[in-house]
């Protein structure tokens, strides 16, 4: 009975510490907002926050997919190239068939991304190429394909239907449409990771791949699913990208993977796998965008902005590790206490 209670308490402690981590980012966000609203003009205006929301929306959508991959102790460096390629395919198709329903265009982008992500997954699972290398290679390969497909040309805004471009400028209920997309994806993503058994498997595989296999989890299939989902979300990100930046060419979304991984890392996703949440990723992305925006409004030079960005990542990671270490120590102490308790109980009988 004590052992079980102890384990439950440990679980609560873990969840508490985890909530603590998100609370940590939340607090950091509050601090940043407070700081910038005092020091910078126009920080608290609705217009400013709508801008931030639009910037963050695409990062959030792709970062949620990236999180699923990182949870399984892998990584996908090719998301930038996937976003670029699916953005072009989608924009090109809409330019040639302006009557195409937007839903179909989105599905096309998602399908392209899904296919590319699937290839990544197969390379990692079937060909047993370490994810960092496989996606480094596909980063170059997919980008090269973009160059071939675009053939040095670009799609221009005037070729795209207005209702598509309006996705980036309308604000139903005060929130930009793109942000609504991100919200829906966040809710669905969070639901998958929390309630879908195969979603929860990602955590298991990342924490302890061997144990997960022994427990009967088809790790290979799950990892491929994670990569495919990541690709699909990157495809959706491409659709959103084309709406937001309608002049799409071969170099669209270059280096975007850095923004995505930064959002995930600051959002508490552990690069060794096994822990992370959608809420954390969203907060992380918002925090990064807020800091960048705040520095700009402070009219700080871009270069200091870049420096502080990097600095923020280091601080976030250090904080995260600190919290995890404290948590592990607390769990260890608790476990030791439980064991002692049990021994006294047994000795007593």
């Amino acid at each position, binding site marked *: 009975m004590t052992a079980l209670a102890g384990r439950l308490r440990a679980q609560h402690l873990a969840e508490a510490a985890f909530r603590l981590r998100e609370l940590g980012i939340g607090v950091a966000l509050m601090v940043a907002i407070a700081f910038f609203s005092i020091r910078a003009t126009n920080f608290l205006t609705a217009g400013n926050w709508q801008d931030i929301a639009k910037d963050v929306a695409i990062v959030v959508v792709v970062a949620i997919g990236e999180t699923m991959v990182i949870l399984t102790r892998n990584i996908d460096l090719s998301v930038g190239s996937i976003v670029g390629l699916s953005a072009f395919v989608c924009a090109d198709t809409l330019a040639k068939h302006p009557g195409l329903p937007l839903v179909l265009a989105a599905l096309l982008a998602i399908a392209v991304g899904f296919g590319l992500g699937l290839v990544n997954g197969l390379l990692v699972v079937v060909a047993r190429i370490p994810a960092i290398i496989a996606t480094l290679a596909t*980063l*170059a390969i997919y980008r090269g394909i973009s160059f071939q497909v675009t053939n040095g040309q670009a799609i221009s805004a005037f070729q795209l239907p207005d209702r598509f471009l309006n996705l980036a400028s309308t604000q139903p209920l005060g929130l930009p449409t793109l942000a609504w997309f991100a919200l829906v994806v966040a809710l669905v993503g969070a639901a998958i990771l929390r309630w879908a058994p195969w979603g929860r498997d990602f955590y298991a595989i990342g924490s302890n791949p061997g144990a997960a296999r022994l427990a009967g989890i088809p790790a290979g299939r799950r990892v491929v699913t994670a990569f495919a989902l990541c690709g699909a979300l990157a495809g959706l990100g491409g659709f959103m990208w084309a709406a937001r930046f309608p002049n799409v060419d071969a170099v669209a979304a270059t280096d975007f993977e850095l923004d995505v991984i930064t959002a995930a*890392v600051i959002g508490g996703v552990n690069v060794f796998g096994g822990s992370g949440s959608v809420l954390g990723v969203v907060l992380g992305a918002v925090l990064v965008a807020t800091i960048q925006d705040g520095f700009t409004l402070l009219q700080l030079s871009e270069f200091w902005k870049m*420096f502080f960005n990097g600095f923020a990542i280091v601080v976030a*990671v250090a904080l995260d*590790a600190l919290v995890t270490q404290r948590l592990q120590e607390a769990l260890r102490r608790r476990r030791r206490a439980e064991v002692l308790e049990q021994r006294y109980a047994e000795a007593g009988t």
Partner: protein
Amino acid sequence: MRLVGRLLVRWETLLVIAIVGVGIWSVTLSPFFLVRANLLDLLTPYVFIGLMAFGLTFVVIAGEIDISVASTLAVSVVTFAQLFANGVNVWLAALVGLVVATALGLVNGLLVGILNLPSLAITLGTLAAYQGLAFVILSGEGVAEFPTRYTDLGGGYVWGNQLPIALIVLLVFALVLGVVLHATRFGRYLFAIGSNSEAARLSGIPVARVRVTIFMLSGLMAGIAGVVYVGSFGSARADAAQGSLLDVVTAVVLGGVNIFGGAGSLLGVLLALVLVAELRNGMQLANLGGDTQNIVIGVLLLAAIVAGNVIRGIEAHGFPRLELRRSRREVAAGQRAEATTFPNSPKGR
């Protein structure tokens, strides 16, 4: 004979075979390939990448990663440039640049080695922070007029104006670092830590100190790469080496260094560099587009890992024997035969 057999299955041998193969292909493409000046000059634009790759090799073998090397090079280069532009003697300025580069590596080393933070996340942060710092130190167009004695280190030629000094620099470092990695106790520590850091610590290896040292070395090599860069290109700007990170990591991975640590050789990295330079040169002689070249390099990377997996499979299990799969009836018959022949065997129970 056994030596030759074991040699043939080594990664480095594969690389040599590939280099010879690509060489033959290049000869068929252009008679200009086999000109001595061309061959000797093949590596010159890649020497700075090779030097960074050598430093990164030490880090990866010990089980970590450092993606901030390109940014470290940038800071080192602009520090040197600013000092020189303000009247400091060029050699002194270069020395300060190297010291700065090592210091930046030290920061990484302390965060990863002492505070035990994950190196991918940390160097992701320092990548941005250092790049921002580089722009803060010297934004804009940079410094260009350097004394010839200095630029000769990266851009000069000897032996009838054909042998690039940069190549000599590369080979000297390859030799020195190769000896350090493969023939000293320090080098052995790296392999031990990369294979099993816990076991290494328990056997008395000063893991933390070693980790700090390799990051300092990585920083120093980035600084030296910066010296060669300024010499080769005659320009010191904050965006020096932007975009080179991918090539550096490719050289390391293609060189047979295990991305998870514990295995690899400096010779492999050198050969991989030669292979990539030669392949790009060949593709350029064939007038293949820059994007096609990237696709080829990406595919090469994937093929190399798969080849490595196959080799490891052969080393472990020998060449696969062609065995016709037994039909189900045969298997069943065999089982029945066993059961009837040994009725009292322990298996029966």
